[in-house]
């Protein structure tokens, strides 16, 4: 079993990629993910990781390169942020359609403009419907663990889908945390070498990325969606077997003090820890408040979500992106939709907060709670906006 080391979370992510013994790393620098690939380049230069490290000319090329290398049977990794994701978005949609199990870390950062390098979820929400398995992590240990778990999920022949790990830019990427690393043999036992189902090889030619006429396109999309839905039990299985290796357990929806809660906060990503502190404070005041943290965003874990909300009457949903002119933030929109057929559905109050690096503190959550209880907050509002 591994040991705890203090390190920057980006470095922990790179350690995990190294432990996965990837064959190809496509790297293009963009704040705040750059330290991950910088560290990987060092591993390759020092001979600690036997991989092709390709400093490509753009993020579009980064993911395109991974498509080619993964199709040729190589375990491939890349990461990006914000504008980089926007530039590669054409390829982002193609990867799951080709069923290539690429793993990518997205160090979440706001999309311009105004130009901002800071953290929110507008980048990932811009590709919400891209068909990747999408996970959110809360701290450095979860980043480290989920790189390894992601390959385990993605490469399962019952899954064969890319996995996107969302980690909050700066808040996680540049934070120093104690990380429990794993021993190589434990990771090797958990994650066997990549066995592609199809591989581009002259000895046995196959065609990938063929054209689909209107008569076939709908069936291709149905097959793709069914594949994403069918990944769910294998995601749970990968977490379960990771628990056996590491002792750390993960679930599609993480809960904290939710059993008897009348009010539930719903968060994704690193704000879960801050919200958890606020719940502790409110519980100390005798308030029946709890917290749900959505770890699995795609496929959306409807069943776990219904189970987790229990008899709560009020859901305070945190969004980190604006859906301009829409029904609220993208997370709240989906949650309202998920609740629509329930007879006694809880009230949904939606705060869009923490845009472009704006701090969301424990006090912020307390303020959201009070304004919700007092009826001052309703449907949808930008939290803390001046004027």
């Amino acid at each position, binding site marked *: 079993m591994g040991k705890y080391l203090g390190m920057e979370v980006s470095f922990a992510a790179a350690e995990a990629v190294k432990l996965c013994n990837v064959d190809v790393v496509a790297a293009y620098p963009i704040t705040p993910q750059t330290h991950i690939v910088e560290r990987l380049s060092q591993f390759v230069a020092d001979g600690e990781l036997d991989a092709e490290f390709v400093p490509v000319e753009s993020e579009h090329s980064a993911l395109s390169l991974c498509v080619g290398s993964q199709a040729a049977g190589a375990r491939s990794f890349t990461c990006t942020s914000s504008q980089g994701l926007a530039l590669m978005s054409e390829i982002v949609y193609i990867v799951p*359609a*080709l*069923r*290539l199990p690429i793993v990518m870390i997205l160090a979440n950062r706001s999309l311009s403009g105004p130009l901002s390098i800071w953290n929110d979820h507008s980048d990932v929400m811009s590709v919400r419907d891209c068909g990747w398995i999408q996970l959110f992590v809360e701290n450095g240990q979860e980043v480290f663990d989920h790189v390894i778990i992601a390959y385990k999920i993605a490469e399962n022949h019952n899954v*064969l889908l890319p996995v996107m790990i969302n980690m909050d830019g700066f808040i996680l990427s540049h934070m120093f945390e104690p990380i429990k690393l794993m021993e190589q043999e434990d990771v090797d036992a958990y994650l066997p070498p990549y066995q592609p*189902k*199809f591989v581009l090889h002259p000895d046995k*030619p*196959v*065609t*990938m990325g*063929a054209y*689909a*006429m209107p*008569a*076939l396109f*709908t*069936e*291709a999309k*149905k*097959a793709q969606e*069914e*594949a994403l839905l069918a990944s769910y039990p294998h995601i749970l299985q990968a977490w379960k077997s990771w628990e056996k290796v590491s002792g750390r357990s993960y679930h599609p929806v993480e809960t904290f003090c939710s059993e008897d809660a009348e009010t539930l906060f719903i968060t994704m990503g690193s704000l879960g820890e801050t919200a958890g502190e606020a719940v502790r404070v409110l519980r100390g005041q005798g308030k029946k408040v709890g917290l749900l943290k959505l770890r699995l965003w795609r496929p959306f874990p409807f069943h776990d979500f219904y189970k987790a909300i229990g008899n709560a009457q009020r859901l305070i949903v945190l969004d980190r992106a604006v859906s301009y002119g829409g029904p609220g933030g993208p997370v709240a929109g989906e949650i309202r939709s998920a609740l629509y057929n329930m007879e006694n559905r809880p009230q949904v109050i939606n705060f869009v907060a923490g845009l472009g690096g704006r701090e969301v503190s424990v006090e912020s959550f307390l303020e959201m709670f009070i304004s919700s209880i007092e009826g001052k907050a309703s449907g949808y509002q930008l939290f803390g906006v001046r004027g």
Partner: protein
Amino acid sequence: MLGTINRSFILPVKGEKQMPKADSEYLWNELQPGCVITEPGTSRVYYTGDWRAFYPVLQKERCIQCGICWIFCPDMAYQKDEKGYFIADLNYCKGCGICARECPADAIHMEKEKEI
């Protein structure tokens, strides 16, 4: 040199005139993951000629058997016959007219397909 490269693998097998199962007959769960096509050379049973609006006509008396049409054809529709002429297989020819445009002997011209 010309015509010595074996392109027979892309040509229709004798007697094989039918497309396999049509696109519109596949169910979603009959597709390979990622719509991968697992057999090579399947485009030979995918007849693209019915999109054609014009078809090439060869005047053999002008043809110098240079094979420029064979080289330029983007659909590899031309094949050499036993007398050395290059003939477009209309199962595949999309009627683009490149052969007619490039023929140095002006031996090929395009004629309009009949209206259906």
